[in-house]
């Protein structure tokens, strides 16, 4: 399907905004202004491509911690992200109870996820089951890293969706590492999409640095799921350009040359070039977008810095639904 220039620009914009915000988080960390950051740099094409295939706010998502670009597409604001980075009051994901990037955004059906990897895969199956029981035409997208598909939980979630033909899209972001561990030590197949054949659902591997290709593939899967055709497993491949997180020192397990080599496939560079080549944007427009993004990010950081911390006392609730307080 040929996309309009408008849509292409929108996709690029979301990738760019996510990148600039993400880069700023690293700066904040170096400045000692935040304690932790886990980055989506290199993952933007896969996430934006997938997000644009959904009906935002209608479909459901159970995301994972690298999904900054995905969450921004769904409607998370840069200000909100900065609040969570800083553990400030108003963080919509957890009221600053969880670490940054443990996303949740109720208003757009993005479900709270935790740190133990792959738990969200099973929740996605349950949400898919609920949708099917209710005979609705929503779909669920759930994301995960390739290493985490080693968890038994992951298989169980995918298996449920396959057995019951649930409207779930399982998107694996294969960035070549699980912290320090390469895919060869996780699985004996070439792509996590190959796992699909053993579970009885379609499996597709896609270039996760190409936002348009991802959009295409995820769109077909969404269409199939929405019309009762069941789940799809998709692996999007990219490279984790940054260390695993701000706590990681990736020089202990990979060479600088390897990283530099892979930066050539940075999805932001690729899409920029593609947009320029196809005359979708001009250099000038790109520069405008760059400065726009920078402005938004700067404003968000300022907002975050000025925001108050939660009070001590907020830590005491809500343990049960009865204790929920709003405001």
């Amino acid at each position, binding site marked *: 399907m040929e996309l309009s220039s408008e849509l292409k620009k929108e996709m690029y914009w979301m990738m760019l905004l996510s990148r600039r915000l993400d880069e700023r988080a690293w700066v904040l960390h170096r400045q000692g202004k935040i304690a932790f950051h886990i980055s989506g740099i290199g993952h933007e094409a896969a996430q934006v491509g997938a997000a644009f295939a959904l009906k935002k706010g209608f479909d459901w998502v159970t995301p994972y911690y690298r999904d900054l670009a995905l969450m921004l597409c769904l409607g998370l604001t840069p200000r909100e992200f900065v609040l969570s980075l800083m553990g400030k009051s108003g963080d919509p994901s957890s009221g600053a109870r969880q670490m940054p990037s443990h996303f949740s955004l109720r208003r757009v059906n993005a479900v709270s996820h935790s740190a133990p990897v792959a*738990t969200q895969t099973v*929740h996605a199956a349950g*949400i898919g089951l609920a949708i099917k029981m209710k005979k609705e035409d929503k779909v669920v997208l759930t994301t995960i890293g390739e290493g985490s598909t080693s968890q038994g939980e992951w298989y169980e979630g995918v298996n449920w969706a396959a057995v019951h033909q649930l409207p779930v899209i399982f998107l694996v972001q294969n960035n070549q590492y699980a912290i320090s561990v390469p895919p060869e030590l996780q699985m004996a197949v070439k792509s996590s999409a190959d796992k699909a054949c053993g579970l009885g659902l379609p499996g597709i591997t896609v270039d996760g640095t190409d936002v348009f290709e991802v959009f295409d593939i995820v769109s077909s899967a969404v269409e199939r799921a929405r019309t009762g055709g069941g789940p799809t497993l998709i692996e999007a491949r990219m490279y984790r350009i940054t260390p695993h997180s701000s706590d990681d020192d990736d020089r202990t397990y990979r060479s600088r040359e390897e990283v530099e080599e892979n930066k050539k496939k940075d999805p932001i560079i690729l899409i920029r070039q593609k947009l320029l080549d196809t005359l979708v944007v001009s250099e000038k427009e790109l520069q405008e977008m760059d400065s726009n993004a920078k402005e938004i990010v700067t404003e968000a950081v300022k907002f975050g810095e000025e925001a108050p911390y939660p009070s001590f006392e907020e830590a005491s609730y809500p343990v049960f639904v009865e204790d929920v307080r709003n405001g």
Partner: protein
Amino acid sequence: MVEKTLVDAIRDAMDEEMQRDENVFIVGEDVGQRGGVFRATVGLFDKYGSNRVIDSPLAELSIVGVGIGAALYGLKPVCEIQFADFIFPAFNQIISEATKMVYRSNGEWTVPMVIRAPYGGGIGGGLYHSQSIEAYFTHAPGLKVVVPSTPYDAKGLLKAAIRDPNPVLFLEPKKGYRLIKGEVPEDDYCVPIGPANISQQGTDISLFAYGMMHYYALQSAQKLASEGISVEVIDLRTLIPIDKETILNSVKKTGKALIVHEDNLTGGYGGEIAAIIAEHAFTDLDAPVRRLAGPDVPAVPFSHPMQDWYMINEEKITNAARDLANY
């Protein structure tokens, strides 16, 4: 009112709640045509269909995890774990996910679900069909834990559990399924989750128990009454939240506390109750707080002499209670 067995009361509760609320559904192993291995769901498959009484894959993790997903969506799953002993594959989903969802999302997401599990020994089930598992779950803020010991309570508490907006672990003393009978109203009623039940008033000693142990505790109390010892029997019934008031008031009255459970002693639930009494009723105590519990072996052995050695029964309770009364 008619007399019913414990398991019939449990089935009635599910039936009525499914009728009342179309969001309630059952998921578990063999709960469909088979009606559950203890026949707790007999007839419900025929009445509500395969859409609401779901024979799951043989995988507890996803029975609970899929339940959580459906609950996040707004449905009300009643998950059956075939034997409590088999709940451990689902431990991560229960402890990391269900119990922490409300807190971690600052109340944005809730998990209104019930997990039913038949527990307890004395039925020749050996190590893996006899376990008491409550202590693993009474240490998880965010989870309610309920153990009925009468058909009346079983129906009323299960209905309350299904309507509760929080995850509730509902433990059923399986030895009592057909052994314990009692009057059960035909109509709709709930027994609130929270209050313990003073099932027999007494003045010499307080006897705290739940499940089958409460059944035997009442027999002991009767026996001891004939010896002139007045036992106050308290059915703890709701293990979490703990009804501290009822517990402490009783100890204030009697000055002596015996806590009974069939689960292993060390690290068992009784330790918490003993600790509460030791701290908050110190000046009321006329004797040491005693616990009578299963011995510290891994679980109930199969062969009858060994099973008898393990299990707490009326006689062991009577002896322990007499002993303490005579302190």
